[in-house]
């Protein structure tokens, strides 16, 4: 909301610079920024403000003037000579082409006063003809033969608005003598306040002035609510019927007869423009003005149209809409209503969407002479729902939907009808039609001094607390160690619950004192019991191991689409995307997706990370990345989905970065990925795991594996199926290795109490053996047999060569192992080593028909 400082100053004495005021308000919870009109920005030590590049009106050279006469230019039809009195001995002659001066051209000295703004030679103004903001200094020069060194200004040239169709002309007395520096006439600072939902009471000039009054401890001057009433009693002219007291606790109305619709006076128009409203006519302008002044929205009906509809004395009925009912609102829209919508009606049907927007049929027109002014109170949540349902936000509904106290209704109607009378003439009917269907509760909160200390940590005396609350217009009764505060009738945010009500008051006290003034302490409490978060620790350890293995962590969006996930399954293949997806699990579907590629929460980490890898491969050949994060399974019978954690790993491109000294490294393959998986399991001290060939439909059937821990699948990894790679738009010439793992299953297998072996002190014996087996024998199985049959004396067996070729039989391969024999307590003899080797060869022979080679 925008509020001119000049308006605030009518309601409260502000004896600090605007910058200090904005700073105090911001710290008290009302975020305030400043816009300057003509006056300089002040630099206050300790307060940083964004530098403003507005035009500061030169006090000596930009002044209030009065046009005495408009003479024709002897040599130019499109120019005139404005003779301007600006308080100097001699009037100034300005050559100007302002179109709005032409009606005065050549009619001799003006009889009615016509005020304007004059800028004298040397003054800085905005260039009115420039499309982009550009400053210029007025210099004397001849204009079509007549020397000119000054000008009458448009609003644009002064930086008030973009208006440059004509110069500023005023018929109403601006209240200052000619020659007054313009800064002292229209110079102003406009406060833009950001209001959080708890500050409903501040949606008006009075509301903000009230806060300032409390902050600066200056009295508040409320606008008068006196009304000159001379007409017959209003009860003879209108009746009011409220059907639903919850939705419409109060309805007030007053009647103005015989008024004239005309433009508002200039001061009111200027003020409306400053707060961002467009002046329309005196009646509509007053409803806006009073709403901004008091916070109470008003609605003006053309009374005669009501009478016409009713065929006599109208009855205003407020009620819920009936199913299928419609109303045409002021914006020309025909609104289809539901029973949740509250309406203002008469006996002939709906007139307005209550608290949100008036109806077209009974609105004020140029011919209106009798005005019925409505000032009602509506339930804030109902108004908010109607706004959302019909997607309309009006100044009135914004206020009602945040909560307006019903006491404001009478203040608004009185203030409004009197201003209308003053501006348009006419007679106000006697009395206020005032129906209170549901009175507002009177809330009194008892606040204990000890409670202030308990919550803020600051000792605030009960008298100081009382003083602050009085400044905020609470009605306070002081006791020894407590006070009773009756909530003023503009607030709807103080609870009648004793504990909550106290907290509400303490918040007020703390923010008026200023949070910077509270002590700064550390908790003086025994430390609550500490506990370790094992899953988190293991997750972080997993990250560390993967980083040590050379992988870059990725974090992708957790949104996806079923279609994007379906790309993981090659066309024609069975299976569903994701790992360990519970049977029947569905997606968590977003009801209001922000983008078409974010309609569900993911089942798999792979689609998003593969997309990231694809983008990266456009500029970087080596990719080795992982992501740890949740997937989401909507499971029947549960309100909330399962959110298990997954780990994804992707490798693509050369396994080593390029270097001038060597040939480009080959692309990462299955064994690079397997090495990382093994490294991870080793790093986590997981030993009980096994692999089986083929890792699911997304992977190459011959170059993938599934990993099993404790009998359940904990992940699958391998080369991405070429059809899947193609579906994700990955380059065909770079094999992509992917893995997805069930993090819980992996973490549950971590043994934090893993054992260690002593470092051996005896010499090892090294020996290589090569065994020839059929091609179908898995190397891992042979390795297991070697390790098992080697017993305690075989310290390790490492496969170092796989050979097929002329020296082994067709359909066979030679697997060569490097063996290390070692006893913990002695040096092994040749005979002991030979015996172990014999056992190994025999076991391999028995298990796989293996033959010792060479």
């Amino acid at each position, binding site marked *: 909301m925008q509020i001119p400082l000049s308006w605030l100053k009518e309601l409260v004495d502000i004896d600090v610079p605007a910058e200090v005021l904005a700073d105090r308000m911001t*710290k008290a*919870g009302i975020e305030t920024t400043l816009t300057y009109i003509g006056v300089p920005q002040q630099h206050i030590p300790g307060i*940083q*403000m*964004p*530098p403003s590049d507005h035009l500061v009106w030169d006090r000596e050279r930009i002044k209030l003037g009065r046009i005495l006469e408009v003479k024709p230019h002897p040599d130019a039809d499109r120019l005139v000579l404005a003779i301007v009195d600006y308080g100097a001995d001699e009037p100034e002659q300005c050559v100007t082409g302002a179109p709005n001066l032409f009606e005065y051209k050549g009619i001799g000295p003006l009889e009615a006063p016509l005020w304007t703004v004059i800028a004298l030679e040397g003054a800085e103004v905005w260039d009115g003809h420039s499309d982009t903001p550009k400053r210029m200094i007025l210099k004397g020069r001849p204009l079509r033969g007549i020397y000119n060194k000054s000008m009458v200004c448009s609003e644009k040239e002064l930086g008030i608005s973009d208006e440059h169709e004509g110069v500023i002309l005023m018929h109403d007395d601006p209240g200052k003598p000619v020659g007054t520096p313009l800064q002292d006439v229209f110079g102003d600072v406009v406060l833009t306040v950001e209001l959080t*939902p*708890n500050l409903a009471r501040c949606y008006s000039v009075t509301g903000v002035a009230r806060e300032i009054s409390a902050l600066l401890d200056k009295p508040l001057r409320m606008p008068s609510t006196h009304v000159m009433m001379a007409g017959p009693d209003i009860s003879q002219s209108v009746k009011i019927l409220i059907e639903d007291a919850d939705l419409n606790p109060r309805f007030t109305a007053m009647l103005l007869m015989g008024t004239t619709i005309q433009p508002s006076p200039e001061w009111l128009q200027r003020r409306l423009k400053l707060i961002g409203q467009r002046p329309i006519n005196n009646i509509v302008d007053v409803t806006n003005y009073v709403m901004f002044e008091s916070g109470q929205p008003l609605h003006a009906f053309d009374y005669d149209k009501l009478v016409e509809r009713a065929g006599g004395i109208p009855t205003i009925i407020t009620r819920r809409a009936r199913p299928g009912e419609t109303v045409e609102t002021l914006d020309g829209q025909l609104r289809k209503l539901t029973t949740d919508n509250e309406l203002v009606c008469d006996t002939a049907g709906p007139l307005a969407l209550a608290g949100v927007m008036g109806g077209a049929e009974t609105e004020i027109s140029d011919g209106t002479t009798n005005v019925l002014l409505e000032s009602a109170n509506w339930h804030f*949540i109902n108004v*908010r729902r109607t706004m959302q349902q019909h997607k309309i936000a009006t100044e009135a509904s914004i206020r009602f939907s945040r909560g307006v106290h019903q006491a404001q209704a009478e203040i608004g109607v009185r203030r409004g009808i009197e201003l209308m009378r003053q501006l348009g003439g006419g007679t106000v009917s006697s009395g206020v039609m005032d129906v209170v269907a549901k009175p507002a509760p009177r809330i009194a909160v008892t606040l204990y001094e000890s409670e202030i200390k*308990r*919550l803020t*940590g600051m000792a605030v005396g009960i008298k100081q607390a009382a003083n602050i609350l009085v400044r905020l217009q609470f009605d306070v009764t002081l006791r020894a160690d407590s006070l009773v505060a009756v909530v003023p009738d503009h607030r709807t945010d103080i609870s009648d619950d004793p*504990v909550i009500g106290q*907290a509400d008051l*303490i*918040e007020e006290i*703390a*923010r008026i004192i200023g*949070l910077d003034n*509270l002590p*700064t*302490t*550390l*908790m*003086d409490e025994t*430390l*609550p019991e*500490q*506990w370790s*978060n094992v899953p*988190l620790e293991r997750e*972080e350890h997993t*990250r560390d191991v993967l*980083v040590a293995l050379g992988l*870059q*962590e990725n*974090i*992708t*969006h*957790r*949104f996806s689409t079923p279609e994007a996930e379906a790309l993981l399954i090659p066309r024609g293949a069975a299976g569903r995307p994701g790992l360990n997806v519970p049977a029947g699990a569905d997606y968590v579907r*977003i009801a*209001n997706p*922000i*983008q078409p590629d*974010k309609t569900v929460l993911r089942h798999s980490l792979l689609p998003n990370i593969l997309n990231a890898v694809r*983008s990266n491969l456009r*500029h970087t050949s*080596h*990719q080795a990345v992982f992501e740890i994060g*949740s997937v*989401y399974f909507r499971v029947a019978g549960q*309100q*909330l*989905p399962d*959110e298990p954690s997954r780990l994804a790993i992707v490798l693509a491109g050369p*396994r*080593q970065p390029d*270097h001038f000294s060597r040939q480009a490294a080959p692309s990462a393959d299955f064994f690079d990925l397997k090495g990382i998986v093994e490294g991870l399991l080793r790093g986590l001290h997981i030993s009980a795991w096994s692999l089986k060939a083929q890792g699911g439909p997304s992977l190459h059937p011959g170059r993938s594996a599934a990993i099993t821990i404790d009998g359940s699948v904990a992940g699958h990894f391998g080369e991405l199926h070429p059809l899947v790679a193609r579906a994700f738009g990955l380059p065909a010439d770079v094999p992509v290795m992917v893995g997805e793992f069930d993090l819980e299953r992996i973490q549950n297998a971590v043994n934090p109490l893993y054992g260690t072996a002593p470092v051996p002190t005896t010499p090892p014996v090294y020996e290589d053996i090569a065994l020839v087996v059929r091609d179908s024998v898995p190397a891992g199985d042979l390795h297991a047999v070697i390790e098992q049959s080697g017993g305690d004396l075989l310290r390790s067996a490492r496969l170092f060569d796989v050979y097929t070729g002329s020296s082994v039989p067709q359909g066979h391969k030679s697997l060569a192992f490097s063996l290390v024999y070692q006893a913990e307590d002695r040096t092994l003899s040749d005979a002991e080593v030979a015996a172990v080797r014999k056992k190994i060869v025999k076991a391999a022979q028995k298990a796989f028909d293996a033959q010792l080679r060479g």
Partner: protein
Amino acid sequence: MLEKLESVYQQAQAELTEIRDSAALAAWKSRYIGGKGAVSQLLRGIGGLTPEERPVFGKRANEVMAALDEAYAAREVLVQDIEMAADLEGAALDVTLPGRQPAMGRLHPSTQTLRRFSEIWAEMGFSVYRSRDVETDEMNFTLLNFPPHHPARDMQDTFYTTDPDVILRTHTSAGQIRAMRELGGGGTKPIRVVLPGMCYRFEQITNRSEAQFYQVEGIAVGHNITMSDLKGTVAEFARKMYSPDAKVRYRASYFPFTEPSMEIDIECFLCGGEGCSVCKHTGWLEIAGSGMIHPVVLRNGGYDPAEWSGFAFGMGPERIAMLKHGITDIRNFWANDSRFLEQF
């Protein structure tokens, strides 16, 4: 034979003095004193000598072998010296050529920031509690004092799911009630936890806003916890996170689940409070929203607000990383461009 031996001996000695590199030295060794060398060859021919000649020849052959071994050892030391000198004086590397880069792994910047957060809060006695992403409307809003349809709900644009009352959490505060109920022993035990996690807002994805972001919520509930403690605790965090002399400012604010509420700013560390584009010329950077836990929320967590009090605060690691490292586009965080990530 003996003459032959002497001549071999002469020749070997003569050759040895010319040798200046280890390859030639090794060749010399195998030619003369190796198992198949000239001296051994001659020794093998000893059978062709007369019994009288044999001991004489054998003795002399062994003397020659020993002498050559000794000469070899001496020459070896010399050759090594010569070679080392040549190596040290030889062609130097162009040290400005690029090094071989090992494939290096890194943590995502958000993880790095989250870890730093958890570390600092752990030092102050806060354990980590992780809550869920998909939440009930009740946990995310109603129990946190956002009644249904309350205007405060306008502050957070929400992702709804097709299941009624199931939403994506808009803030980690959604885990507050769960933490209090799970750890508070039915309102009998004090707690101190931080809740890190991914949050979601229905916001257009631009350089300034994302549909998902990390948040870290912290809560402390006890018998004797005050707003002054909140100030001191967050100031301590700021000193550890930013700099030992970080200046902190407190502004009143509004969150439905805290009362009184405050925003916490630190003096802009980029301009030292002088005003710059990052702090929008205010000299201050917003780092946390906070406040005393609202009595309604304490009650919903199982605590009697007349007896217990507590504070809560929330902060965003992405925002803090952006401020610290001059990141101007928040979309970088989930785009995973390696050219962005490798800078952390």
